[in-house]
């Protein structure tokens, strides 16, 4: 997908701007706090209809304004077919409106991922150094964008989980609590299977990317499910395992007043391949190693998009090279040139940091939210 045009209204400090994007992409240069990340946030909003920085929609509306709106004109590279994706949010009624070619979808899930974009940000290091919640969120976004039915299963699982937890907290008899188990196990098994399959399929790519960027040892990613799974368990086996452990946890969950096992307690383990043990990058990795692992996760995400959606992803780079040492920076750049990437939109405070695409990207400048070509 190519992003041809972008119309922004009252999104953060970006004011009202209508921009035409060059087909190869653009490098946005500007000092800190001028709105570089806001620009990428606006673009990526059209991919997931939420802030990649985890901001609430209210926070995205410009000061003194009531509504923000972002609309993008996309064009398919092969067919030339174009499409318009728009999103708006009204602060007062807390109403979000999303449309594709003017039509509102029945469910948000139906229009996720139209951009086929991946965003790389310095905050990605949290994927590695942060808690399991960060990594589950990463898995959930990647799988919602690439795996049909995943988002529905995840949403069902969450709905059932909060209700089951409310029953537990309420001290309802176990006959009432277990009434939720069938739904919890069914949706939960679908979530677990999708996570397990994705991680198993992509762990080789993760190792390779890590190794190429680090220029030395590799790293592994492994699924660490809350429910212990046998190798190659099918969905039915996963459901049975989940049901068994749920039944065995009855007393503990009653005491804690919450469901203690299930995919809401999963983690993605990232380890160095330096010895048999494998050091956990979260606990023992250096800053450079964690940043490398985070980059590798995003590169795997980009590859997933490329393979499942069969299109070169739009790459958004939010000043990611600044914190890498020289060697890593060169190797990431080389890797990105080699991989089949689509348009690239990158931000940087310095001209000299934008050597991607053989330094061929047109330069735009941003100052106090105003973008000039």
């Amino acid at each position: 997908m190519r992003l041809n045009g972008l119309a922004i209204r009252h999104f953060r400090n970006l004011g009202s701007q209508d921009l035409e994007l060059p087909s190869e992409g653009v490098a946005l240069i500007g000092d800190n706090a001028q709105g570089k990340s806001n620009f990428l946030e606006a673009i990526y909003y059209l991919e997931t209809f939420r802030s990649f920085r985890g901001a609430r929609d209210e926070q995205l509306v410009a000061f003194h304004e009531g509504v923000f709106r972002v609309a993008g004109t996309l064009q398919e590279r092969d067919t030339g077919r174009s499409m318009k994706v728009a999103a708006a949010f009204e602060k007062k009624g807390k109403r979000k409106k999303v449309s594709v070619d003017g039509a509102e979808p029945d469910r948000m899930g139906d229009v996720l991922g139209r951009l086929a974009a991946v965003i790389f940000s310095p905050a990605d290091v949290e994927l590695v150094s942060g808690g399991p919640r960060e990594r589950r969120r990463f898995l959930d976004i990647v799988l919602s964008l690439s795996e049909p039915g995943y988002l529905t299963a995840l949403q069902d699982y969450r709905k059932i989980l909060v209700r089951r937890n409310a029953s537990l907290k309420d001290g309802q008899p176990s006959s009432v609590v277990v009434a939720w188990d069938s739904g919890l196990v069914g949706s939960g098994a679908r979530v677990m299977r999708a996570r397990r399959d994705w991680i198993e399929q992509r762990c080789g790519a993760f190792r390779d990317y890590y190794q190429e960027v680090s220029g030395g040892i590799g790293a592994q990613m492994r699924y660490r499910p809350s429910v212990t799974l046998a190798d190659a368990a099918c969905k039915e086996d996963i459901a049975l395992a989940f049901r068994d452990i749920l039944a065995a946890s009855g007393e503990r969950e009653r005491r804690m007043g919450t469901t203690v096992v299930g995919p809401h307690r999963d983690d993605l383990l990232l380890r160095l391949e330096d010895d048999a043990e494998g050091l956990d990058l979260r606990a023992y990795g250096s800053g450079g190693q964690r940043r490398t692992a985070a980059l590798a996760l995003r590169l795997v995400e980009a590859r997933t998009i490329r393979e499942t959606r069969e299109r070169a992803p739009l790459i958004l780079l939010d000043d990611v090279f600044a914190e890498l040492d020289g060697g890593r920076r060169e190797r990431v750049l080389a890797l990105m040139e080699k991989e089949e990437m689509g348009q690239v939109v990158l931000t940087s405070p310095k001209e000299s940091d934008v050597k991607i695409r053989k330094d061929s990207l047109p330069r735009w400048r941003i100052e106090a939210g105003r973008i000039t070509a």
Partner: protein
Amino acid sequence: MSVIERLTGDFARLPGIGPKTALRLVHHLMKGSKEDTRRLSRSLLDLSERIRPCDVCGNFSEHELCEVCSNPRRDGTVLCVVEEAYEVGAIEGTGQYRGLFHVLGGRLSPLDGVGPEELNLAALLERIRRSEGEIEEIIIATNASVEGEATAVYLDQEIRPMGPRVTRLARGIPVGSDLEYVDGSTIAQALAGRQEMSI
């Protein structure tokens, strides 16, 4: 507050009616004949004074027993459990169902503090017990939402040990939709294709 404001406010509290539509309805009534408006107000009064839940099944009724329960030609061996009384009408509308009903008055909804105690459930179990085996099948027609499903599982757990077969409406009813909004032929198909509950 003026009469017009008050009535507009009353209309606006009804489902699916916003302030603009409410005002339009009030204007319409003011322009129309006084007799029409009186008839409407009498109907509203009758609704509030004469409609009550059926003593047996909880369906809307004008007497102790609703039209379904008081009809001797209905099949007393089958009982269809719905969440809300207005859903009885949706199933009756298919013309395909000859059994009786039981209205739960809601569904398990722990976020709203609704557990089994808050539902018309004890009466259902009592009805089954008192029938001494005459009720052979319970069709669970709770909605296909996560709460409707959990309610179905709970009912199955409670009812099956008492003897009757427990069946669930076949899939095909869109997930999360109330029976009220599903068309008659879809409901008829779901009834015909009902299956034994399995968990």
